[in-house]
């Protein structure tokens, strides 16, 4: 465990969950769409590829549909994710929870933690492109809208996460 950060304790999970649900509801009611995270990364990836190697994504429908007309800063999900970063920062700052640190198990080196972080990120990237969304766009948004695919995603993701967490449990204790 890295150095403990003093700060106010976290909110009650049910209260935070109801708050999150009201944010999601506001998004449905006002914008007609839910939350998302992976879509913003798809737009960032498509924009980067167009700048660096446009030939490599010519004819790639996935990247073309994530290239909005007005550029990435006119994209709903990109702006929403910038909001997530600002909102998370403000909440932590006001609760005294901002601190530079690397969260990892007590017996795990920073290099090992960096490895699991990269590997985990890569796998989540692959999974969310295949599934057309992640915990935000599929699980929360699709879950609340009773989408069949979202509930399949929730079941599959939790099952795999429990299995992998059990196998790798030593790296967190």
């Amino acid at each position, binding site marked *: 465990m890295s150095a403990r950060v003093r700060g106010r304790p976290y909110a009650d999970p049910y209260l935070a969950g109801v708050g999150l649900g009201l944010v999601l509801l506001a998004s449905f*009611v006002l914008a007609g769409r839910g939350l998302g995270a992976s879509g913003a990364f798809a737009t960032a990836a498509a924009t980067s590829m167009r700048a660096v190697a446009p030939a490599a994504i010519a004819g790639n429908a996935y990247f073309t549909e994530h290239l909005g007309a007005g550029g990435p800063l006119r994209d709903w999900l990109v702006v929403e994710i910038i909001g*997530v970063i600002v909102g998370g920062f403000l909440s932590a700052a006001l609760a005294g929870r901002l601190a530079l640190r690397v969260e990892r198990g007590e017996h795990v080196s920073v290099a090992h933690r960096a490895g699991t972080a990269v590997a985990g*990120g890569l796998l*989540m990237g692959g*999974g969310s492109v295949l599934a057309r969304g992640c915990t935000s766009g599929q699980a929360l948004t699709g879950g609340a809208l009773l*989408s069949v695919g979202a509930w399949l995603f929730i079941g599959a993701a939790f099952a795999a996460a429990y299995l992998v967490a059990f196998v*790798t449990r030593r790296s967190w204790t």
Partner: protein
Amino acid sequence: MIGPLPLSLPAGSGDALALAFGVGIGFGWCLERAGLGSATKLMGQFHLTDMAVFKVMFSAIVTAMLGLFWLSRLGAVDLSRVYVPETFVLPQLVGGLVFGAGMALAGLCPGTSCVAAATGRGDGLVVVGGFFAGVLATGLALPAMAGLHQSGARGSLTLDTLFGMDSGSLILVVVAAALAGFIVAEQVEQWQARRVAEVGR
């Protein structure tokens, strides 16, 4: 009077982007308040020591689901203009398995990794980088996996249609399941706390 809901904001307009920014701030704020920007807290869900992920996620789903159901029933919101993510059976099962394995390694999901990075966590920043690379690489490989990616297309299929139930009854089942899940989550946490206390003695 703000007119029919959802609003018809042109994509990329200042109003739409201001709304996106506001929704994002609320989203990031709630994730951070719940402690889900912390990989060690998030992993508690999968080590059965801290069920906050489940509690936050299902309180949010139930709140938004009930709110939307009643607002639509009262005629305040046109449900047909709310976009329901489309179902693709196999890619969402396979994608879910790959995603879940990654989430247990990363200790964070894409949204919470942004909060982790924004609050000073180096591990969160590395997850963000890995996730970006994963989306980029899989996006490039997608034309070769088009068969899998497009398989099992069912459109915007919802659970009530699948089970031939009216949406109100299905929502009641989901709420009951979530409440039962909350009771189980509390029991699991108490059982783990007792176990830890015994080991420590």
